[in-house]
């Protein structure tokens, strides 16, 4: 096979712009998850007249639960393969990270396997989230006296 034909075939069969395709997938899947959250919020806040704060927590918990169950049955990974950041950035990504790390390490024992590895991705997220929160708290506390 001569080189020009090879190049042509590679061009033909490789995706036109993987970055653009990935971004579009991420946009639609991420958007879909958030609009699902909005519908859940509407259900609690408007239909059941639950307070806004409680409804927000309900949205988070239900999305975490759905993502955890999908991870448990191995469906989440198939979606995430195409969605990329679309499933990672919403709270579903956090839930998936916790559950999949826990499941993958179950053969290494309950305490140092599951117990420790469950924080592989959740740990950094919680640590840096909390510490930036503390930093903000210090600044806010000082600003109250100025």
């Amino acid at each position, binding site marked *: 096979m001569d080189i020009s034909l090879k190049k042509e075939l590679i061009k033909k069969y490789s995706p036109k712009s993987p970055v653009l395709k990935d971004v579009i997938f991420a946009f639609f899947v991420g*958007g879909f998850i958030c609009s699902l959250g909005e519908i859940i919020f509407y259900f609690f806040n408007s239909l059941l007249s639950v307070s806004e704060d409680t409804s927000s927590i309900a949205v988070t918990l239900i999305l975490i639960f759905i993502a955890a169950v999908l991870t448990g049955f191995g469906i989440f990974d198939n979606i995430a393969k195409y969605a990329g950041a679309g499933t990672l950035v919403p709270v579903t990504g956090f839930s998936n990270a916790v559950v999949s790390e826990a499941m993958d390490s179950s053969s290494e024992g309950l305490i140092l396997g599951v117990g420790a590895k469950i924080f592989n991705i959740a740990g950094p997220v919680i640590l840096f989230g909390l510490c930036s929160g503390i930093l903000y708290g210090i600044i806010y506390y000082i600003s109250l006296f100025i």
Partner: protein
Amino acid sequence: MNDIISSVLLAFIGGGIICIPAQLLIDLTRLTPAKILVLYVCLGVLLYGTGIYDYIFELFGRGASVPLIGFGANIGKGVKEAVENEGFLGILSGGLTAASAGISLSLLLGLLFSVIFKTRQKRM
């Protein structure tokens, strides 16, 4: 009825837009997902602290609070309210209090599923 359609649509657009920078970071810089999650949570605290998050949330609703930016903003909000109510101690107690429900549920489900699905994996 128009209200809910427009708010669902805005959540869709907002959530989608927030995912785009993360996807670009994955594709173009090979940043690992863990780093992106950390980046988004810290960004959320920063956006909340500067007051920008309020505008984003006002516009997009769940499109702003469901992504991990909302998780970070939630921590910031918890700290702010705790400082107002409890004073100095609130700096330390507010963040975890606000994030506790989500963290607890995902950890519980993680432990539960690692036990349930262990036997399932073995059989295959």
